[in-house]
């Protein structure tokens, strides 16, 4: 493809950006949005931008949302671009989600399970009716009820199934995972690489693909074994210290999707898992990721690979919304010469057709 450097238009671009800045600010009679307000009151948008921007920093994500005028894909793009300016200090120890400080934890497979069903701050069971009380500003929110109890252990549901030997165990491994921010995506992609791509993948794309597996495109019979959301400690071992230290806490959402597996020549019938893990409170994304992760395991589990969600190249090459938007939106760039040649060709064909 050929692009032509086009001169001129500088003044037009400057004027366009000045107008953009004015539009972004909106009515100057209204107070300007602060980053703290975005962080606190549009928290799930911040979480989504961090997840798809693949960079955990609430303040930067809030800035990106403000700059992008609320366009969350543009905001993820801004965050991805910013991260390329920072040095990499290293990689953390794997976060241990069983040690999570739980804010929400539910299971659809066991009613009564150790630690119980903890609903947390959820939209579930709300009536989805517009709440006009929120339109009137200045209301105070009563504090949420508290119940002081002794700490209850919350073992993983997959662990409960594994104890009975009914859940395929994850082979223990400390292998250095591949990193698609350093090496281009290659196929076949191992599960760690796939999970990295899915974790930063577009929520809408993964949601639709996950949905497709439920509707028959891929042989899925999923149950939500467990969703948990809360704070986990991130540990890092600086080379100069030689022992791990805590960098702080981040919120993550984890989904363990439990799926039937009919068994194979080497494996007995059992359950297998699809796994979802995302930055922030991103339940829909974690669930969709878990569905797609399981679908992408078809080949390793000896299942037929027939549906789009089971096709590694289809899923992994198209789930990244920053790449997708780049290629789709590049169509807006000048293609004058390309198009000129197409035009010549069509005219020629027309002349030939008319001449005959």
């Amino acid at each position, binding site marked *: 493809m050929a692009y032509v450097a086009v001169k001129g238009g500088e003044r037009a671009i400057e004027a366009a950006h000045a107008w953009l800045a004015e539009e972004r600010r909106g009515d100057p009679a209204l107070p300007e949005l602060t980053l703290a307000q975005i962080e606190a009151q549009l928290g799930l948008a911040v979480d989504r931008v961090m997840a798809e921007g*693949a960079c*955990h*920093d609430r*303040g*930067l994500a809030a800035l990106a949302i403000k700059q992008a005028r609320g366009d969350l894909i543009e905001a993820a793009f801004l965050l991805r671009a910013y991260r390329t300016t*920072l*040095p*990499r*200090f*290293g*990689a*953390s*120890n794997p*976060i241990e*989600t*069983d040690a999570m*400080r*739980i*804010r929400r934890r539910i299971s659809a497979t066991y009613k*009564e399970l150790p630690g*119980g*069903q*903890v*609903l*947390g701050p959820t939209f579930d069971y709300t009536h989805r009716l517009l709440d006009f009380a929120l339109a009137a500003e200045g209301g105070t929110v009563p504090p949420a009820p*508290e*119940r*002081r*109890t002794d700490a209850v252990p919350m073992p*993983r549901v*997959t662990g409960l199934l594994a104890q009975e030997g009914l859940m395929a165990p*994850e082979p*223990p*491994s*400390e292998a250095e*995972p*591949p*990193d698609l*921010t350093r090496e281009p995506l290659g196929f076949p992609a191992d*599960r*760690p*690489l796939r*999970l*990295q791509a899915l*974790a930063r993948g577009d929520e809408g794309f993964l949601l639709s693909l996950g949905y497709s597996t439920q509707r028959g495109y891929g042989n899925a019979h999923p149950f939500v074994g467990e969703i948990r959301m*809360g704070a986990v400690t*991130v540990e890092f071992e600086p080379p*100069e210290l030689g022992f791990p*230290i*805590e*960098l*702080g*806490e*981040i919120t*993550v959402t984890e989904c*363990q999707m439990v799926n039937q597996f009919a068994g194979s020549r080497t494996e007995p019938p059992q359950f297998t*898992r699809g*796994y979802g*893990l995302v*930055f922030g409170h991103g339940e829909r994304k974690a669930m969709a990721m878990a569905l797609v992760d399981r679908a992408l395991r078809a080949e390793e589990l000896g299942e037929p690979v027939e549906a789009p969600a089971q096709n590694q190249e289809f899923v992994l090459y198209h789930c990244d919304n920053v790449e997708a938007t780049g290629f789709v939106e590049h169509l807006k760039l000048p293609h004058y010469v390309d198009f000129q040649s197409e035009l010549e060709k069509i005219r020629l064909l027309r002349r030939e057709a008319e001449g005959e």
Partner: protein
Amino acid sequence: MGVLARADAASIAARLDDAPALPAHSRLRGPETGLVMARGRQGGDGAPFNLGEVTVTRCSVRLADGTVGHAYVAGRDARQAELAAVLDAALQDPAARPALLAAVIEPLAAEQAARAARDAARAAATRVEFFTMATMR
């Protein structure tokens, strides 16, 4: 170190007001912001994978007596990283350690524990009690 990583610069500084003065220091490196790739495990307990990066600010300092302190804290708070590094160095002095622990680290840890306890209590209030349905019959 974990306590200082969870506290912002303002709350560390507020605790330092009531603490013995920190020794003078010089910066060896930073404070500078970079990234640490946060990793998860497939299936929660299997092989590691790269989840995404976290912004991290680090700082290394040297005290007049040669003690070196390091800090790595999540986020971009340069002042927090520098204060944490100075405290890391100062806490290595057995004479200064008890007073600094009492004035800075322990109160910050208590604040953090209280916040965590409040979170846990709010979560516990949303725990579903299925047995209440049985007693209603």
